[in-house]
């Protein structure tokens, strides 16, 4: 994971082509959702050791935001998918 990432659009590329944002698990709450939900979304992270989902953007390639599902201890990658896949925003 930390050397190469297989972009679903561009193929296997070096890690330095990507920008990493962080945890892809939190979902942006509805505008009127409670303060707790908003605080959790912006500030609180489960941060487990093991399987996680993380946002990576292929800035030096297709510029798509990707969800990298991987193990944050072994760095094994399980899948890399377009973040918009299945949500109406595919290209």
């Amino acid at each position: 994971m930390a050397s190469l990432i297989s972009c679903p659009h561009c193929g296997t590329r070096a890690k330095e082509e990507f920008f990493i944002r962080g945890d892809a698990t939190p979902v942006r709450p509805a505008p009127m959702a409670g303060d707790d939900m908003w605080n959790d979304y912006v500030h609180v992270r489960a941060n487990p050791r093991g399987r996680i989902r993380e946002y990576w953007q292929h800035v030096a390639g297709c510029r798509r935001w990707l969800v990298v599902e991987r193990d944050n201890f072994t760095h094994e990658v399980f899948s890399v998918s377009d973040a918009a896949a299945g949500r109406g925003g595919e290209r």
Partner: protein
Amino acid sequence: MRYSALSIFKQAFAGNLGWTPAWREPAPKSHYDVIIVGGGGHGLATAYYLAREFGIRNIAVVEKGYLGSGNVGRNTTIVRSNYMLPGNEPFYEFSLKLWEGLEQELNYNVMFSQRGIINLYHNDGQRDQYIRRGNAMMMEGVGAELLDRESLKKMLPFLNFEHARFPIMGGLLQKRAGTARHDAVAWGFARGADRLGVDLIQNCEVTGIRRENGAVTGVETTRGFIGCNKLALAAAGNTSRVGEMAGLKLPIESHVLQAFVTEGLKPCIDHVITYGAGHFYISQSDKGGLVFGAEIDGYSSYAQRGNLATAEHVMEEGVTMIPGLSRVRVLRAWGGVMDMSMDGSPIIDRTPIENLYLNCGWCYGGFKATPASGFCFAHLIAKGESHHVARALRLDRFERGFPIDEAGVGTQPNLH
């Protein structure tokens, strides 16, 4: 056993056979007033100050590995108090003052070396930021000096003044900052705590936190259940995992930071120097190795190892700042797991759970904080209220809207 030149002299003539263990290896008792989870720098300092300053002696420190096996033993050993924001600066200055008396206090030479830190700047905007920071330091009574290019050239002729993408314009100097022998800090606090009766229990991993009516009553460990009145977490690198045992979700993401050391060299760099057109920082250990690092690798990780691309980037910055590093060989790279918090600043606070106290979120700046972190955490545990220099380091500062964001980058942990 007290350490002194005399004790060394006496022992030398006894074949060095009379030295006694630096700490006991006690079996865990069934109950303690306070259990501290984490036998790193902060946990050991907390135990020491609880016993020394706040009169609580019935304490255990439980450590899953060996004492000092976390980030206290894998950092770049920098000690400084050159912060800008009022939530941070008094705390780190308090820490620096504790460092200044630490060796005599602990009767242990942690080789705290006040050789000075110089933060280089490369443009007007950065200079103005450093002036703001330097003035914030002086408001707190912390010395700071602004160095121009000419005086830097005299002090550090090996810097790249002519052939850098971003030429060096000057620097901010804190003379009292420096380095310390990192392992010795853990050992010094461990020995000091042990001498005050604290039980240091190694190879004892916490596997669960027991609660009754919501309140914490003790910990399940690989060496059995241990009861306590108060439980204090100082497990940076594993904070979220231990917190999760009590049902806590925290404003923390784990990231890996690499550090490096070169082969030993005769003295050639006499200060701590940081690069303003990147994140590179460097100093020379007393053994002669150049110790350095830069930014975190950038992804969530619990693996104590880094990636090559980041290492290469660190070297690029290093050679750009000091061209003469080019032929110096790098001996070893290592990685530590950082508690990256949402604003880049730490947390020393109570938790919503009764009897559970939290010390975490040190990002990559925990080493310098070790004495103050221990002192203030002990203060909180003993007195139930924050020490005045640590008042801003609250867990609820995020939801209440009082972040302490030195970098000004918001709630993205990997940018701090």
